[in-house]
Each structure stands twice: as structure tokens, then as C-alpha cells.
């Protein structure tokens, strides 16, 4: 029993890194522009399909394709921002929720027509590694490493480059940033793109170890919300820690009850945190 828990805990923690960067994308967009991106899930699904097609049709290694998927995610995000979000950036939340949701419907509708909803699988394996009772597939370890790398790069970008600093300036106070000559529209578009890029990367990494359909993004999007409130909306590092927490929980829960209860429990956890401490467990400023 204990062995099982340790093994599934390690498994869950590695998965948590990937959940973490998906949630970080959501959190970044929320922090910078107060928009909850409801098209997050479908973009993750597109990331999965990107890896899938490059692997099955072109035979490319998923880790080689990942930067391309990331680039695609960035461009898609800038496009979504320009078309759907920019006009209503100052409108009440209702508008931005519904606008990003309509993007969700558009992607899911087109995706279902093009790829159908039959499950896909990237048949890719790197073998596995054993440490005592724990046996881990290398793909999980690689995904966790990639997620850590992406987080590190994101922090370098946000804190060490001029563009990154403008993103943080716009987060703090958009009006003041504009007065300092920062082109806020372009910064917002870039921030939205970075958020969707993280979603696409997370999707791509998940594709290397789980089967998926075009609708798979939905559950991961829901998880990203749970993680975001765990870590505090608008706090990227909190999102990573929240991801690890949720991954650990998902590793442990199946030891005690059936896996099909996991979504219900996650939702209950989500509501409890929202009620008790809406600024998040690791709450920063709200």
C-alpha cells in the first residue's frame, strides 16, 4: 500500500509540473489583463494535435517539435487577442468570458469536424527508470524537466528583458505604463500570446503520455482553474506550486477511491478554496 502511494505520488508530482505550466498561462493572462481565458483548453488540445501530427506523419521527435508548437501557440494567442479580446478589454467580465468562450466553441467545432472525436495516441516511449518502489516513464521526467525549463525562461524573460518588464509594468498599472510610453495594446497581445503558448506547450507535453481527443482540453482547463485558485489568480509561480499540489492529490486519491470521483473532488476543493480564501492558498495581492 505504502509503495503504491509513494509511486503514484511521484507520478502525480511529475504530472503536476505540466499542470503547473498550463495554469501559469491562464494565470499570466488573468494577472495582466483581468481576462479569464476560456479558450485555454482547446488551445491545449491543439498543442496535443500539433505534437501528434508531427510525430505520426513526419516522424519528428516530440521534444524537437515542442518549440514549433510553442511558436504556433504564441501566434494563435496574438490572433485571438486581436480579433476577440481587444475590443472588449475594458468591458465587464461577462463580455470577455463570453468572447473567449466563443473562441473555444469555434476551435472545438472546427477541430471536431477536422479530427473527429476519436482518441489519438502519440506512440512514443523513452523507456522507464526505477528508483526503489518507484517506476517512472522517462517521458514524464522529461516533461517535468521541460516544464521547469519553460518556467525558468519565462521568469528570465519577465524580469531581465525590457519587453518582459513592460509586461509587468502593464500588469501593475496600465494607465501609468501607457504614460511612460509603453505601447499597451502590443504588450497585452504579447502577454495573451505567452499565456496561450504555455497552454500549447502543456498540451504538447501531455500528448507524450496520455491519449487525447479534441475535447480533452476541457478537463485540463478545469484543472487549470483549480490550480489558479490554489496558487492565487495572477501569480505565475503560485500556479506552478498549485500544479504540484493538485498533481500530488491526483496521485493519492485513486489509492482511496475510484478514479471517476476525481473531477467531483477537485471541484469541491475548488469551491472551498474560493470561499475560504479567494486570493488563493499562496495568495498574493488581489
Amino acid at each position, binding site marked *: 500500500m505504502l509503495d503504491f502511494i509513494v509511486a503514484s505520488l511521484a507520478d502525480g508530482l511529475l504530472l503536476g509540473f505540466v499542470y503547473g505550466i498550463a495554469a501559469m498561462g491562464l494565470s499570466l493572462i488573468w494577472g495582466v489583463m483581468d481576462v*479569464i481565458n476560456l479558450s485555454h483548453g482547446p488551445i491545449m488540445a491543439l498543442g496535443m494535435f500539433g505534437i501528434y501530427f508531427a510525430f505520426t506523419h513526419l516522424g519528428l521527435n516530440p521534444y524537437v517539435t515542442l518549440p514549433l508548437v510553442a511558436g504556433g501557440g504564441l501566434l494563435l494567442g496574438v490572433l485571438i487577442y486581436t480579433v*476577440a479580446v481587444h*475590443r*472588449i478589454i475594458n*468591458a*465587464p*467580465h*461577462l*463580455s470577455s*468570458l*463570453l*468572447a473567449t*468562450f*466563443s*473562441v*473555444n*466553441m*469555434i476551435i*472545438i*467545432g*472546427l477541430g*471536431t*469536424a477536422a479530427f473527429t472525436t476519436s482518441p489519438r495516441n502519440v506512440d512514443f516511449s523513452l523507456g522507464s527508470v526505477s528508483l526503489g518502489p518507484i517506476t517512472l516513464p522517462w517521458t514524464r521526467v522529461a516533461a517535468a524537466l521541460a516544464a521547469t525549463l519553460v518556467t525558468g525562461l519565462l521568469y528570465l524573460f519577465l524580469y531581465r528583458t525590457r519587453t518582459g518588464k513592460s509586461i509587468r509594468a502593464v500588469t501593475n498599472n496600465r494607465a501609468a505604463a501607457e504614460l511612460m510610453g509603453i505601447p499597451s495594446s502590443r504588450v497585452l497581445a504579447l502577454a495573451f500570446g505567452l499565456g496561450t503558448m504555455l497552454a500549447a506547450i502543456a498540451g504538447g507535453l501531455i500528448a507524450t503520455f496520455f491519449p487525447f481527443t479534441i475535447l480533452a482540453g*476541457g*478537463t485540463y482547463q*478545469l484543472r487549470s*482553474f*483549480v490550480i489558479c*485558485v490554489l496558487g492565487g489568480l495572477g501569480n505565475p509561480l503560485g500556479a506552478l506550486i498549485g500544479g504540484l499540489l493538485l498533481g500530488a492529490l491526483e496521485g493519492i486519491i485513486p489509492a482511496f477511491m*475510484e478514479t*471517476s*470521483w476525481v*473531477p*467531483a473532488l*477537485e*471541484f*469541491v476543493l*475548488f*469551491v472551498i478554496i*474560493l*470561499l475560504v480564501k*479567494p486570493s488563493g492558498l499562496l495568495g498574493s495581492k488581489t
Partner: protein
Amino acid sequence: MKPFAGTHGKQWRNHGLWLALAITAAVALWPTLAGNKAYAREVTFTILKAVALASSLNILLGYTGYVSFGHIVFFGLGGYVGFYLLSVHSLPLYVAVLAGALSAGLLAFLLGKAILRLRGAYFALATIGVNEAARSFIKNFQPFGGPIGMTLNFKAYQAYGGPSQALWIAYGSMAILTLAVILVSFLIRTSRFGLSLMAIRENEDAAEVMGVVAPNAKTWAYVLSAVFPGMVGVLFFFKNGNIEPGDAFVLHQSIETIVMVMLGGQGTVLGPLLGAAAYQRLRGLLLVSPLFKNIQLTVAGVLLLVIILFVPAGVVGWLRSRFPRLRRVLE
């Protein structure tokens, strides 16, 4: 505070109310005059169902300004409870309908107490999870048949004079229910309670300062908007003859209902009615067209996006602001 103390008596002379009721009644009577009665009845049932769902969602989305992404959960839960009473306990239909309403209302009350303390976006996030959580609960809940669901014994229809008669009873009840939703929606809109909801929509803090007890008002709006979908669910699954988790908690239906409300005009009585009817007709046309049948959801998405970006008030709202004289007719 008297909840429905509006401008006393005057509301019955409102043209907008009678227009909305007349349109609904005309639509509901169409199958009795149509050539192919059974076909017309099925089409109209779908339209009336959409109208009832959209008008009830409007109480929360349009009047109160809170988005519920999982409103279909009340349709599903009400349907399940009613169906359970119909099939396992062989209770009459009206008891099942009342039980459906009661259970949906109770769930909304409890959920409302819990998650309506959350403002705007946080509430919307929570409702996305409600539907998923309810579906995974029902799938694991054995008395309701778990993942397989339940089927109504064919004999159950005998009590209503045979299956064909039972379908007409379900249809008639649906029509009356839809008229009731429209009436309630209108009464709320013209009442003091409705005014407090709209005050919350415009500015919740200011509304509270003016003496609106926002958590209570929001909870009652949520309950009222949940009761009718619960009843619609019972009628729909009674007509359907079987129920399973995949049919009862279809997330797409929640979203399509939002599109209907936004299309017609959120916060108006006539808007959801016209929006739902128009959307259902459009959907019917798209489903039979070879080009669009696979990307029906995309078309709905584009429609929603265009409305939000360019006509956020919806068709009725746009007409009302463009032609002020129409305000007396388009409530």
C-alpha cells in the same frame, strides 16, 4: 419588502407582455393546425424547450448579470429526480414535475448560498465545474442507474391513455410551462425584486449601499432561474422515455442557451424568446445543410462573438435603443 409589489395593476396593461405571450401561444398552437402533426409537435417541443431554458437563464444572466456556464445541470438533475419517481415509484407526471422543480430549486439554493458570495468572474468559473461535478456524481450514483441511466417502462404511458396521448400531454404541459416562464420573467422584470437584481447587475457595491441585500436577491434569482429548467427536464425525459448522464448534462446545451439569450437581447422578456426560436430554426437549417452540419458549433461561436463584439445588447436591445418608440412594445 414585498417581492412583487410593482406598479400595481398597470403591468397587466403592458403591450410587451401580451406580445410575448401571444407569440409563444401562436407557436405552441401551430402543431394542432399543421399537416404532419407529430412532426410539427416534435419541432415545436424543441423550440418551446429552448425558449423556456433561455428565459429562465435570462433571470440570472440578463437581469442579475451573473454568467452561469452550467445551467443545464438543473435540467439534468430535475429530469433525473422526476424520471426516478416516474419509473421506479410510478408516481403521476405532475408530482414528478413538481419534484423536479423542487430538487432543482433546492440545489440552486444550496449552491447559491455557497458560490453566489463569489463575484462575477469567480462565480462563472465555479459554475463550469458544477455541471462536470454533477455528471460525475450521477455516473457513480447507483439508485439512478449509474452510467447506464434509466428507462421508462412502456406500460407507464398507459396511465395517460397510451404513448401517443402521453406525448401530447407532455407537449401541452411544456407549452403551459413556457407561458409561465415568460409571465414570471415579466413579473420579475417589472417588480421591485427585479429592480434590485438590475441594480446588482449595474453595480453590486452601490446596490448594497442602497439597501439591496445582494446575497439574498442573487440566491432567489438563481433559484427562480433553476426551478423551470428542472420542470422542463422532467417533461423532456418523460417524452424521451429514457435518461442517461450523457444526455442529461450536455455542456453544449448550457452554452447554446447563453447564445440564445445574447442573440435575442439579455435582460429583456422578449429577447430570449426570439433568440431561442431564431437559434433553434438556424440550428435546424444548419444540421441539414451538408456544408455546415459538422461545424454547427463553430457557427454558434462566430455568432456569439459577433454579438458580443458589435451588438452586446442583442437584437431586442438594439431595436430598443435605436427606435425608442418600440420600447412600449418590446419589453
